[in-house]
């Protein structure tokens, strides 16, 4: 027993100093905003290992005779434009991601007109000009086929679950198909497991803890200073340092593009939402004011800390329902040109980063300049999506910290203004389209709230209306 404690004491003292040095080094680098490239090297190494793993799996499957060549189901009927819904993956730092990731949308080929959407364009077809046909027994075939296609693969339900990877990235949680492939792969997986859980995880927890302490301490100190230019500059610096340290806690490798379009004070920044980590990612490069529901627990601590040093908008749940209060506070905030840009996620909920869903019009009615930002995560290194119905915040953070890394690309897009006579909804859709295009995401009209609520009856009535328009009646 004494021997054990003795060994632990010796090991502790041997590792303590280098550990402390490592910590100080990380914090110093975070404060000046530079990186020595350790994480990028790490990413490159991981990619080589994944490639090796993939080749290994393929040879093993071939040997076992499992991978049968797919029968050609091609009976191409006619020339109707069938769109296979894919999304082009952007390049990350010169590494082409050709078909490494399987986006949901590749099972069947769907004809555009068979995909039902909720809000068909109002009044697109005048009653008089539509070709009307008599009712035929085959009229329901279209609906049946659309329904069956939707059952096999639809555009919406897959967005609320983690994206499926085409090739395994050596983590148990993404393993859906393989039981045992080969000894070499198992050994690699074991090593990866040990590294992630026994080495990276404790390190990351310590760094994260330090980051949070820094945030709470610095904002506490800043809270005592009255509002002035010095305070704002200090807040800018402390805020970014805190989040840079926390980003390192997740091995966050962030590639930022178009830095000249970085959001400026007095504007509104909108981005697609995947998880609360989005805030962390964006905050490593710029200071924002945040808006959201007041939380308890871990997030609540951060929220209160932040509110001491700079203006943020935190709502009680009951107030969220009062849209006027939200709009009013928002207007107040952006009318002051010295306030940091306010960061809003108009989708209102977390989506799995393969698509952009309906933007709520509230933030587009304020009348200020909009800075769109597109965020795209690389899912091979760790899935950033927070499935709030399945995992709590703590579970999610645990999974984040035991992933390989969080790798993402951020694009700042040129600022946009509402055009003359353009409604808030059209403006929102325009911004959404721009973000989707840049990030290589699918642009959907569906509401992200479908995660929790049922579709509205009006949408079905719209479909019925459309059908009735085409029916000839005496």
């Amino acid at each position, binding site marked *: 027993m004494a021997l054990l404690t003795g060994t632990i004491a010796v090991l502790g003292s041997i590792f303590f100093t280098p550990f402390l040095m490592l910590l100080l080094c990380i914090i110093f680098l975070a404060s000046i905003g530079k990186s020595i490239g350790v994480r990028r090297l790490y990413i490159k190494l991981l990619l080589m290992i994944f490639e090796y793993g993939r080749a290994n799996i393929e040879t093993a499957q071939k040997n076992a005779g499992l991978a049968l060549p797919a029968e050609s189901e*091609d009976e191409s*009927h006619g020339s109707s434009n069938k769109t296979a819904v894919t999304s082009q993956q952007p390049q990350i730092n010169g590494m082409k991601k050709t078909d490494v990731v399987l986006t949901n949308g590749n099972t069947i080929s769907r004809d555009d007109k068979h995909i039902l959407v909720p809000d068909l364009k109002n009044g697109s077809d005048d009653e008089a000009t539509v070709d009307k046909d008599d009712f035929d027994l085959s009229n329901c075939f279209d609906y049946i086929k659309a329904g069956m296609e939707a059952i096999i693969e639809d555009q919406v*339900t897959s967005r609320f679950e983690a994206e499926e990877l085409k090739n395994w990235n050596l983590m148990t949680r993404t393993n859906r198909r393989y039981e045992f492939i080969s000894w070499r792969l198992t050994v690699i997986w074991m090593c990866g497991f040990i590294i992630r859980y026994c080495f990276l995880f404790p390190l990351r927890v310590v760094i994260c803890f330090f980051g949070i302490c820094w945030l709470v301490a610095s904002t506490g100190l800043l809270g005592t200073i009255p509002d002035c230019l010095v305070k704002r500059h200090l807040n800018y610096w402390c805020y970014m340092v805190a989040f840079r340290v926390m980003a390192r806690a997740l091995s966050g490798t962030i590639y930022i593009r178009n830095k000249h379009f970085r959001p400026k004070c007095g504007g509104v920044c909108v981005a697609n939402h995947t998880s609360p980590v989005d805030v962390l990612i964006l905050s490593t490069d710029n200071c924002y004011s945040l808006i959201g529901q007041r939380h308890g627990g871990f997030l609540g601590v951060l929220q209160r800390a932040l509110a001491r040093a700079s203006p943020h908008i935190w709502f009680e749940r009951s107030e969220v329902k009062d849209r006027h209060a939200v709009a009013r506070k928002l207007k107040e905030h952006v009318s002051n040109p010295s306030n940091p840009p306010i960061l809003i996620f108009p989708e209102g909920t977390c989506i799995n980063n393969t698509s952009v869903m309906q933007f709520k019009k509230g933030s587009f009615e304020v009348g200020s300049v909009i800075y769109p930002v597109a965020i795209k995560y690389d899912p091979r290194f760790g899935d950033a999506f927070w499935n709030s119905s399945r995992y709590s915040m703590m579970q999610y953070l645990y999974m984040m910290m035991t992933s390989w890394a969080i790798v993402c690309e951020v694009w700042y897009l040129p600022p946009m203004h509402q055009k003359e006579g353009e409604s808030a909804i059209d403006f929102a859709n325009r911004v959404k389209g721009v973000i989707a295009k840049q990030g290589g995401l699918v642009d959907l009209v569906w509401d992200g709230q479908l995660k929790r609520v049922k579709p509205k009856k009006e949408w*079905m009535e719209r479909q019925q209306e459309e059908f009735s328009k085409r029916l000839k009646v005496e």
Partner: protein
Amino acid sequence: MGNRSSLLLREEEISQLQQDTGFTSNQIERLYSRFTSLDRGDYGSLSREDFLRIPEIAINPLGERIVNSFFEGDTGDRVNFRQFLSVLAHFRPVKKNKENKNNSREQKLQFAFKMYDLDNDNMITREELLAILHMMVGANIGEEQLSSIAERTILEADEDGDQKISFEEFCKALQRTDVEQKMSIRFLS
């Protein structure tokens, strides 16, 4: 997190399903992955709510009818993977020069016929036709006009004068429709 891997399909099951339905093993795997993701509670079977949770089905005017087609016969309130596959097998494209067990033209027509024939008596009556029309047009067309549409449709298809459409009359009325294309779903792999 670990429940997915415990529901992996066995090889023997896959080859059995291949034989019965005609899907390739790739397609069966993808459909199984879809089945498990629709199965929210991890029961190994799907209920009507699981289907209706798909927004595109919920707004489809014939959505409920389509979902019911999975629950035909004695399957009770839940559908397992085998039953799920056997219904979808009807929508495989027709292959020339190969045996088409579940997806021949006649089988596809049979499936469509069952959509209309609510009480499964092998006859489409005027009321059943009206019911489907109601589902498809909602409140946008008046009762009288719908009735006349239904009557005219039956008149055109009915040959033996019993004011109902039998399966043979149904097939004859759809002679010139490209059923193979309209009721087939093309897989990408």
